[in-house]
Each structure stands twice: as structure tokens, then as C-alpha cells.
């Protein structure tokens, strides 16, 4: 009897381990999109424009699934990171350009993460001059002394906090009919503020670093092309799950803040969207969620940046190298933590603006990275039989062109207004 139970338990254990074996890259990578920049951007989208931008979110879900799947596929076929392939295919000059753009975009995102830390502590009345340096030190300490992977998992579990937005969404009882209609009716306002928010919405969901991250994740995990089908499902699932959360953040803020005309000026305003669920505790709940999301990004991004750059330039990487051999690796991590902290500590700077604008930088730089990804994935000498099909190429091109057009219109309209 006991033996039988033990056997059963063993089988269950193996099944569970197998399940965990495939799960990871898609879900984690997509979930990390709901970081400080993400929550704030979605909140601003809902608060300032109601459900008008939901059609963009729908398109972005497809685009996220397709672009992440492409990253997974390149990783599975080549078993190499994106930085390395770009270097070997396009030479050192273009590599330097892409790495520079990625560095800028990632620094922007890390800045958003520390702004998120500052904002969440701001809600409970702790000064950012205290909270941000301590958070930075903590990130530092864990990265250099502790286990990066364990911490990442802990924060990932915490990040399931977003389910509160889904529950909240149902409690408010928003106008789902209107939301569904808006999801399939493209509306666009040719104002800088609308365009800037729209690019941020795209840029916070599909990110340059996300492309690098998911590809090196599948390589590190030791997956190969045999796992392709399972991975594809996982990636699509990840894209849908995160964007369901995004959907509910937007309709929550739309139903609470947009309705009464509150514009989000600080994180406290965004927290008000959770009041139907949590009442007075809404602020604490939001502060906790924002903090966790910020920390997750603050852990992943500096490390991911350092790995990508070192791979491209052939510098030694990894936390098991000593300081003199891994000096570039450690320097990049340090710079991508310290510089963003300093920006956040500038007195009177608007934290919400940082969090949204950093997503704009990501959005504007994204097409360049995607162009490289597209070029690689359509190269038979690299991908063999696994080159892109018609639909993947179509979705990727629409994403690229869509962002470029939006950016051009944005720049043009800003000039128009200034002029």
C-alpha cells in the first residue's frame, strides 16, 4: 500500500518536473512585460483614453506571440543568443549599433523599474532618497552574492498579484460590450499625447530586451528543436495571459478614473483603480504590486543586458567569472543599475512620466531590433527548414511599419504643435 502510494507520488513528481521543464521562457518573458513601466502605461492608457486603445492591445497580443515565437525558434535552431548571431551575420558595426540601441532601451526600462520602486514607496510615505538606494543595494547584493534564479522565481510568484486586477475588473462590472466593440474598432487621435501613449503601449509589451531574453532563455534551458511545438504553445499562452491582465488593468482604470476624469499624475492616482476591490487598502495593494513588478525587472534587465553585450563582443560573462576576467560583464551590470538610480533621484522629476516615456524609447527602438530578427529568421543558411512562414512575416512587418508610421506621425505632429 505504502509502496503503491510512493510509486504514484514518484510518477506525479516526474510529470510535474516534465511540465516545469517546458514551461518557463514564454510565460516568464511575457509576464516580465507587466513591470513598473507596464502597469503604469496600461493604467495611463485606461485613465486617459478609456477603452479606446483596446484595439491596439489586441493587435499587440498577436504581435507579441509572433515575435516571441520567432525568438524561441532562432534559439532552438541555433542554440545561440541573439547578440552572437547578429555579430556573426552582420559584422561588428551593425552589432555595435544594435547593442547601443538595446543598452539605451534597457537603461530606460531599468529607470522605469526604479521609478516604480520610488512610486510604490511614495504611496506609503517613504522618501525615494531612502527607498531607491536601498532597493539598488538589494539588487546588487542578490546578484553578486545570492541566487539570481531563486530570487527571480520568488518575484515571479509575487507577480501573480495581477490576478487582483482581473477580480477587480469583475467587481466593478465595467461595460464589457463597449470594451469588446473598442477592441475591434480602430480609433486613432492624431494628437501627440495619444500617439505617445500608443507607442508606449506597444513598446511596453513587445520589447527589444524581450527578444534577447527569450532567446537566451531557451538556450540556457537546454531546449532544442524537438521542444518547438510545446514551446510554441507556451509562448502563445504567455502572450495571452499577460495581455488578459493588461486588458483588465485598462478596463479597471477606464471604469474608475476615466469616467470621473482623473488624470494620472502620480502612482497614488493609479492605485485608486483598485478601490472597488480593496477599498482603503487599494493603495497598499497597488504599492505592493508595483514594487514587486519593479524589482523583478530590476533583477532581470541589468543581467540580461550584460549577457547579450558580452556574447556579441566575445567578453567573458557569468557570475562565476572573477572580476578581472569578467570586468566588462560586471561593469555593464553596475552601470545599468547606478545610472538609472541617479536619474530617478533627480528632485521633482515626474515618476509617471519616466515610466511611460521609457516605454516609448523601447517602442521607438523596437523596429530596428525586429528588422534584424526578421533578416536572421528568413536566412536559410542559418535557419534551414525553419525559416518564417508568410503569416509570421506579415505580422512582423505590420508591427514594424505600424510603429515606424506612428513614430513619424508623432514627431511630425510635435513639430506642428511647437511650430
Amino acid at each position, binding site marked *: 500500500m505504502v509502496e503503491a502510494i510512493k510509486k504514484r507520488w514518484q510518477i506525479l513528481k516526474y510529470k510535474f518536473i516534465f511540465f516545469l521543464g517546458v514551461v518557463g521562457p514564454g510565460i516568464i518573458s511575457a509576464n516580465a512585460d507587466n513591470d513598473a513601466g507596464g502597469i503604469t502605461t496600461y493604467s495611463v492608457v485606461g485613465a486617459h483614453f478609456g477603452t479606446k486603445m483596446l484595439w491596439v492591445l489586441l493587435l499587440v497580443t498577436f504581435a507579441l506571440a509572433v515575435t516571441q515565437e520567432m525568438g524561441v525558434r532562432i534559439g532552438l535552431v541555433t*542554440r545561440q543568443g541573439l547578440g*552572437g548571431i547578429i555579430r556573426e551575420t552582420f*559584422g*561588428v558595426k551593425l552589432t555595435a549599433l544594435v547593442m547601443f540601441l538595446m543598452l539605451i532601451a534597457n537603461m530606460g526600462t531599468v529607470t522605469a523599474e526604479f521609478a516604480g520602486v520610488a512610486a510604490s514607496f511614495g504611496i506609503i510615505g517613504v522618501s525615494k532618497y531612502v527607498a531607491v538606494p536601498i532597493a539598488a543595494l538589494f539588487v546588487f547584493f542578490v546578484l553578486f552574492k545570492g541566487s539570481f534564479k531563486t530570487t527571480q522565481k520568488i518575484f515571479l510568484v509575487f507577480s501573480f498579484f495581477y490576478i487582483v486586477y482581473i477580480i477587480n475588473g469583475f467587481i466593478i462590472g465595467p461595460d464589457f460590450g463597449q470594451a469588446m466593440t473598442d477592441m475591434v474598432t480602430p480609433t486613432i487621435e492624431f494628437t501627440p499625447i495619444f500617439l505617445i501613449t500608443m507607442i508606449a503601449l506597444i513598446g511596453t509589451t513587445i520589447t527589444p530586451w524581450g527578444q534577447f531574453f527569450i532567446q537566451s532563455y531557451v538556450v540556457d534551458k*537546454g531546449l532544442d528543436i524537438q521542444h518547438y511545438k510545446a514551446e510554441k504553445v507556451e509562448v502563445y499562452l504567455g502572450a495571452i495571459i499577460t495581455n488578459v491582465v493588461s486588458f483588465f488593468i485598462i478596463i479597471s482604470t477606464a471604469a474608475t478614473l476615466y469616467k470621473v476624469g482623473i488624470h494620472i499624475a502620480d502612482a497614488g492616482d493609479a492605485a485608486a483603480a483598485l478601490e472597488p476591490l480593496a477599498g482603503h487598502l487599494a493603495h497598499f495593494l497597488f504599492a505592493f504590486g508595483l514594487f514587486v513588478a519593479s524589482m523583478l525587472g530590476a533583477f532581470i534587465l541589468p543581467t540580461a543586458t550584460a549577457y547579450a553585450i558580452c556574447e*556579441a563582443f*566575445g567578453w567573458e560573462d557569468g557570475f562565476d567569472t572573477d572580476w578581472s576576467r569578467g570586468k566588462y560583464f560586471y561593469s555593464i551590470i553596475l552601470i545599468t543599475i547606478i545610472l538609472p538610480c541617479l536619474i530617478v533621484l533627480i528632485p521633482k522629476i515626474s515618476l509617471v512620466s519616466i515610466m511611460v516615456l521609457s516605454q516609448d524609447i523601447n517602442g521607438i527602438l523596437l523596429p530596428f531590433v525586429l528588422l534584424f530578427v526578421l533578416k536572421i529568421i528568413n536566412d536559410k543558411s542559418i535557419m534551414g527548414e525553419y525559416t518564417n512562414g508568410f503569416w509570421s512575416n506579415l505580422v512582423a512587418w505590420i508591427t514594424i511599419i505600424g510603429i515606424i508610421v506612428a513614430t513619424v506621425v508623432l514627431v511630425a505632429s510635435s513639430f506642428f504643435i511647437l511650430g
Partner: protein
Amino acid sequence: MLYLSHVLGAKVLDSADHVVGVLQDLAISHKVGEYAPVRFLVVKPVRAKKDVFIPYEYVDDFSKDEVSLTTSLKKVEFEKHISNRFVFLDKDVLDQQIVDVSGIRVVRVNDLRMGKVNGKMCVLGIDISTKGLLRRLKIEWMDFFNWFSVDMIDWRKAQPLRRELKLSMSSNDLDRLHPADLANIIEDLNVQHGGRLVQSLDVKDAAKVLEEIEPKLQKILVKYLGPDKASDILSQMSVDEVADLMKSLPREEAKVFLSHLRGSKMKNVEKLLIYPDDTAGGLMTLDFMKVSPETTVKQAMEEIRRHSSKHRSVLYIYIIDEDEKFKGVVSLRSLIVASAEKKMCDLTNEDDFHKNSTLKVEDDVDEIMEVMTKYDLFTAAVLDESGKLLGIVSIDDVMRHLVPNA
């Protein structure tokens, strides 16, 4: 000092100083352990679409400032195609990964140092430094404090990986690397390069290296090599390592790989496949010395001499009777100090062999460690219910299980 980045993209002049084209690439002939001489210039002629290959014999001056020919382009007998024996420096070497044998690491080629050896223009070294990177980007001036220094690998000491690479452990510096170090290098490479490196090794060395590679990459590499090529290497690996590897593969695939192994090897692997990973059965190896109780010390030592190369290590001699029942164990030390005529069964005493100092197949890692620690064993015998000796667990198999990433 001349670098490849100085001449790539340079204008090529003829004897009358007319620009006849732009230098695209250089073709070298590569031989392991020698500086590679430049054999052809790959030039895109003015007003022509296709590149031509100009033999290096026509070059008059090849320097930082100019590349000039001894004659006019019309008189050059250039080639339209050259054999793919030649390695192209820009296409095949620059920006690729190479193995730095002396530093035991994988690096990227940032630039190549050129120079004359015995009057021939050759590739001398590989610049892997940040200085080389700045030079390639044409922003060397940024290093005005001279913070960065050039870090050069001798061409003869490096192994380019993109083209088919031919190296054998014996004729090459790679043989100085410990299999574990070589395994680390392969872990750093992508699967094509890593697979090629494994294939380039002699099968015995390849087996040692493959054993040291982390399990998930092992699996990918073996699949990349395919059953035919992998079976040669697998048959040189120790049975328990092969069994572990097969366990990690889907059943159908494992069957295919197994069917490519020799009969006896296959049977032994299959014997191990039935035990779960973290038990004595899963950890044990079939690789040990066994003799019958009546064997004399002299005979046993001869036996060791004869079969030593087959075994990974010989620390203990196991004594089994005709029914393969475990009868005791003799350490190498007691064997050496014993007189030659003594029988093996007389050498086992309470110190070496205690009833509790053996393992059962289903013992888990904790139990194994307890027994091995308590009785100070380097290897422990694994018995079935009837007392038959099935295999032995060695301390490094336990260590590998506890510290899988080392």
C-alpha cells in the same frame, strides 16, 4: 603594424596607380600549427558585379595605406572561382567564435594581425581585445588615454570553428586541455560548433569529453551527431554514463541509439536502464575488476596489468564466486603488500568487508553516503537480494549527483 581591418575595403591600384577595384576579402590556405599565407585577394572590380580572385603573386605593395598590383588588371590571370579549401578571412573568421587553447575559453575574433613570414604575407595573430573592436569600428581615437591594450592570440594556437575544423588531440594543442576544460569550452559554443569539435576529436577523447559535459547539452549533442556517429563515441563511454544519457532521451530515440551499440555494451546499458536515477542502481557502474576467490595475488596482479586500460580506475578488486555472489573485496594496497601465493579469499578481512558496507539497488543517495562515509569507502558494492554483485558506486558518481554543474 598591419591589421586586416586596415586593408578591407581599401582601393586596389594597378601599376599605373589607377583604381581597379575594392578589396573585399582575403583567401588563405590554412594548416594547423602554421601561420596562414594569403593566397588570393578577393576584389570587386570597378564597373563589374562579381568579385574576382587575384593571386597574391601579383601584389606589389600590401600595406596600411595601399594595396597595389605589379601590373595592370588586364594582364592579371585572375580566377572566377576558387576551391572551398581556402578560408576567407572576413567571411569565415572575422567576428566568429574561436577556441583560445592557452586561455581555455571561447572568444570572438575582433581583428586579425597580418605580417610577413619568410617573405610571405600571412595571418599572424588574432586580436580579441577591445582595442581591436575600436579599430574595427574606426573609433580607435576614443582610447586617448590608452586604457585598452591589444590582446593577441597566436594564429597557430587558435582553432577557428566556422569552417570544417580538422584537429586531432595528438597533433594539436587541444590535447593539453583536460577533458573537463574542453567540455566547458564546448558548453560555451553553439551546437554546430560544439558538435564539430567533438567529432574532430579521437573517439576515446571524445568519449571522455562527452562524459564531462552537462547532461542537457550531452543530450543535444548526441542528437545532433545522430546514431551513426554518436555510437562510436558512446561505445567508448562508461556504461553508467551511457545509461544516464539514454534515460534522458525519449524511449523511442534511446532504442535507436542503443541498437547502434555493440551487443555486449547494449546489454550492459539496458541492465542499468531499469533503475531510477537517484538510487544505488542508477548511480552504479559495471566497470570494476572482479576475480574468483581461488585466484592468487600474483594472478590477480597480472589480471590488473592486462585489463587496466579498460577500466576507468582500479581501487578495489571484487571477489565473486561462480554464481557471481559477492564474497569480499580487496584494496589495491593489501594486494600489493600481500605475498604472491596467497589466495584472494584469504585477504578479505573484517576491515575491508563488512556485511553492512554493501549497498542494495534501491538505496537512495543519503543511504549511499551514509555507508560510504561510515566505512570510508571510495567505491561500494551494489548487491541484489540473493547477494549477487551487480555493480559498484564510486564516490565521484555520488559527487556528480550532488554537484551536477561542476
